[in-house]
């Protein structure tokens, strides 16, 4: 038996639940992870990623020195360099001078429109705050975004429109106070495992009833009272039909509608067409199930809705989210303990990165860049001449990629993101990456995206730095350094500050915007001075237990659930809706709907989990196919199949399972050799600019073993 040199308490770097981890260290090696049984978020429970998945930190592919490409890259002929042979190690001094020089030159030549940065929902609040500050103050550019655009943008926009705040309204553990709850577009068991445990306990031990609305037969269906197996992309029809039933049967909350909401009449009128019969035709869900679900939700004492990316990742993602919000406003199931609207955020810090202003339209705290008095406030704090900051809202993640080229975006700074796995229609993304003049990658590994960079800046992992993450229920929690940085890797916030000072010098700026931070706590303090929700969050207050924003002052205890007395925009606004079909529907040539998502053992683009022993448990991409379709296509379990869309083709093994529904195939997007996003469509929601990952049309054909990219990797598993 060995004893640890030290045990460091920190926050899990995987999903948005924000579990507390205790890293047991010996000789600078994490050999075990535990979690205290009194931890507020997870009560000592962890999932496989949090408990065992940290070993990517020590993966031998970690890059630990700054590097540049051996062959200088030119726009149009840029080639990826996935292995070390194509790179030369250089000093930090050389690397940062080079980056500062190239970025400053491009900015001076082509202006702020040529500059763009992908911030990172894995990095800390402090890292993201500084990155957006660097691009706003030095390059006067709002082309700042991160992967929230690819996950919950539709939910964020809808919640901003309807209630004026875009976070989960409840604490996740409040699920035990729900009498009825709806889970839609979310495979909680695999993607927010600890919240799923709390949901199961709510059902099994506290008598809550669950309604699942999802095209997949997710594991939670085993615990559900009702399962509404909708066709992908028909959420507006199903939820509006529920509203129709609630209106018809007068199950709505008149007092709530009168005192807390507006625009009811035009909304109610727009719901008339959504009869359960109409919804059944559109969605394939039995009308009786819709009626039962509507009655259950509306008549529950406390009811809440939980959703993940099945709702926003659509060309009508904003409408999908609005259809859920309408239901909550109609029944008054919001603003009380155990009631509310809960978008389950994916990344460990996607809430925080959004709060910290890693967004093209907003400064930190969702304060619009095109509002004069707000811009003035930021100019004063950041020491910028009046009128100096850019008032023009910037480009979103997907728009940045489309805008690459002469007269458009010329340089891209990628902090930890992996667009070459996570963007839709990857063949197009690759073409756009090739056109860039200068790319900086700040990461742990040469990811599929970092392979396109000119300069690689080695950043540290979560275990090697201090900072804060904000989890899905708005809790700001500490991240603590447990081991020394590996090699020459540096914390992101230090890299950014060092680089910003050099860029200021190159641009001849004499009035610095302030980059001399000794500690991340000083960065959070500056952010708190600008963002009212974070004003009361101080490191010494969150040493033991994180605070839930908004925390307006230093004596405020935090806010477990939102909207008790009023909505941030005043009254909650109903939105009339119309059903719009998905951008690409199946036809004779491409007869199946492809929907994408994740599995328990992997994380997003896989740059961490494919470099962890986690990948031994789930080593290869697999396509889920319903038994009826398997018979139709003559495909057996484990057969290799080719999946083709109008945009590309991949080969992977099939799993024949009733987890999916007839006519729908499911592919996780973690695996580079069979990247689901080669197939997905880059059609966008017009308001939120979020791509439609959840619906596109594909064809499948059986192929031979030798066409598989990685035929040897196979791990039989018995889990759901």
């Amino acid at each position, binding site marked *: *038996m*060995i004893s640890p040199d030290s045990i460091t308490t920190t926050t899990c770097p995987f999903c948005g639940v924000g579990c507390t981890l205790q890293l*047991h260290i*010996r*000789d*600078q*090696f994490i*050999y*075990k*992870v*535990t*979690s205290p*049984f009194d931890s507020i978020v997870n*009560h*000592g*429970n*962890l*999932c*496989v990623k949090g*408990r*065992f998945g940290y*070993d990517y930190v*020590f*993966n*031998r592919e970690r890059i630990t020195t700054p590097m540049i490409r051996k062959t200088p890259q030119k726009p149009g002929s840029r080639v990826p360099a996935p292995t070390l042979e194509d790179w030369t190690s250089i000093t930090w001094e050389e690397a940062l001078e080079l980056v500062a020089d190239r970025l400053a030159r491009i900015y001076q030549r082509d202006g702020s429109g040529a500059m763009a940065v992908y911030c990172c929902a894995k990095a800390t609040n402090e890292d993201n705050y500084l990155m957006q500050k660097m691009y706003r103050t030095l390059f006067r550019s709002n082309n700042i975004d991160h992967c929230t655009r690819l996950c919950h943008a539709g939910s964020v926009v809808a919640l901003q429109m309807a209630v004026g705040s875009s976070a989960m309204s409840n604490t996740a553990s409040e699920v035990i106070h729900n009498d009825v709850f709806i889970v839609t577009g979310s495979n909680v068991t695999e993607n927010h*495992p600890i919240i799923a*445990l709390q949901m*199961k306990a709510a059902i*099994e*031990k506290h008598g809550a009833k669950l309604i699942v609305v999802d095209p997949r037969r997710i594991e939670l269906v085993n615990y559900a009272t009702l399962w509404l197996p909708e066709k992908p992309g028909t959420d507006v029809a199903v939820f509006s039909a529920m509203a129709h039933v609630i209106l018809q049967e007068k199950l709505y909350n008149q007092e709530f509608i009168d005192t807390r909401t507006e625009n009811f009449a035009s909304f109610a009128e727009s719901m008339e067409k959504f009869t359960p019969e109409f919804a059944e035709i559109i969605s394939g869900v039995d009308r009786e199930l819709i009626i039962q679900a509507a009655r259950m939700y509306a008549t529950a004492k406390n009811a809440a809705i939980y959703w993940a990316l099945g709702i926003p990742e659509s060309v009508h993602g904003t409408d999908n989210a609005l259809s859920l919000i309408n239901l909550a406003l109609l029944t008054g199931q919001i603003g009380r303990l155990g009631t509310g609207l809960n978008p389950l955020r994916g990344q460990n810090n996607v809430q925080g990165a959004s709060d910290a202003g890693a967004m093209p339209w907003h400064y930190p705290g969702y304060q619009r860049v095109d509002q004069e008095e707000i811009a003035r406030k930021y100019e004063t704090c950041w020491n910028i001449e009046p009128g100096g900051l850019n008032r023009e809202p910037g480009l979103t993640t997907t728009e940045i990629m489309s805008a690459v080229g002469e007269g458009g975006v010329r340089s891209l700074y990628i902090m930890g993101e992996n667009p070459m796995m996570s963007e839709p229609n990857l063949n197009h993304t690759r073409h756009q990456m090739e056109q860039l003049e200068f790319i900086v990658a700040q990461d742990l590994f040469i990811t599929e995206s970092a392979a396109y960079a000119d300069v690689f800046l080695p950043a540290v992992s979560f275990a090697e730095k201090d900072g804060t993450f904000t989890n899905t229920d708005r809790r700001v929690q500490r991240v603590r350094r447990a081991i020394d940085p590996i090699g020459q890797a540096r914390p992101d916030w230090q890299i950014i500050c060092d680089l910003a000072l050099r860029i200021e010098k190159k641009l001849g700026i004499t009035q610095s915007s302030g980059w001399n931070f000794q500690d991340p706590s000083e960065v959070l303090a500056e952010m708190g001075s600008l963002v009212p929700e974070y004003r009361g969050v101080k490191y010494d207050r969150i040493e033991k237990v994180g605070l839930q924003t908004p925390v307006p002052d230093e004596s405020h205890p935090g806010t477990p659930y939102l909207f008790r007395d009023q909505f941030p925009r005043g009254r909650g606004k109903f939105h009339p809706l119309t059903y719009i079909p998905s951008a690409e529907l199946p036809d004779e040539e491409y007869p199946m709907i492809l929907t994408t998502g994740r599995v*328990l*053992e992997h994380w997003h683009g896989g740059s961490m989990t494919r470099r962890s*022993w986690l990948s*031994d*448990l789930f*080593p290869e991409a697999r396509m889920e196919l319903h038994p009826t379709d398997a018979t139709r296509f003559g495909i057996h379990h484990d057969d290799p199949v080719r999946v083709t869309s109008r945009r590309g083709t991949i080969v992977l093994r099939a799993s024949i399972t009733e987890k999916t529904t007839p006519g729908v195939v499911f592919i996780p997007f973690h695996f580079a050799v069979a990247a689901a996003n080669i197939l997905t469509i880059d059609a966008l929601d017009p308001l939120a600019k979020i791509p439609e990952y959840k619906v596109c049309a594909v064809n499948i054909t059986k192929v031979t073993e030798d066409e598989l990219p990685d035929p040897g990797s196979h*791990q*039989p*598993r*018995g*889990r*759901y």
Partner: protein
Amino acid sequence: MTEIISLTIDSIPVSVPSGFTILKAAETVGIQIPTICFHEACTSNALCRICVVEVEGARTLIPACVAQVSEGMIVQTHSDRVQRARRTILEMLSSTVDLTDSPEILAMMNDYHADPERFPESNPREFDLLDDNPMYVRDYSKCILCWRCVQVCAEDAQYTHAINFSQRGFDTRIDTFYHITLPETTCVFCGQCVAVCPTGALKPKRQWLLETGYSPIEIMSLTRSKRNGNKSRIQPERKLP
């Protein structure tokens, strides 16, 4: 309003809400009753009986982790009869189970003057170490059958039901259904069983490798088949530290 119950523990008057266990009531006045199978995050089942106490008027010793307080109860937590029972439990445990990874139980043996050699004729419970997945190893020679792992895998946390008891009596052991490898079960590798294991029978694989003499660099350089472990369940060769 909850009813308040008054009782006496080791001659100290105690008042606690009804529904409190004797264990919890004793804690409120600073009396420590030893526990092994009890865990705050698990349902108590009074399996190990180390927490037994003497209650006046009761025929047998009473397990404090499940027995609830009642009005006028008189409890002795460290009487001779209690001490003898605990000592015997510890001596039986140590005669059948490898307790080398259980410092808390070893400390208890010391406290209760338990003699590890009291039952020299006993058969130790010996099992091959199970190394069949990349996340954790199972060494049931160290298992005292406290039930915690089975419970957290079921309703106490995960609702996964990947492991349960098999066999009967002395041969009772924790196992997967039909003795299949863990990846083939419903196991989701949350590791909650590892977290509540009191005796090191369940251990994270990288900790186990470190303890068997591998360096961090060697561990991170293992091949995939080595990481996945031995599917045929032959005890792997141990390296000496």
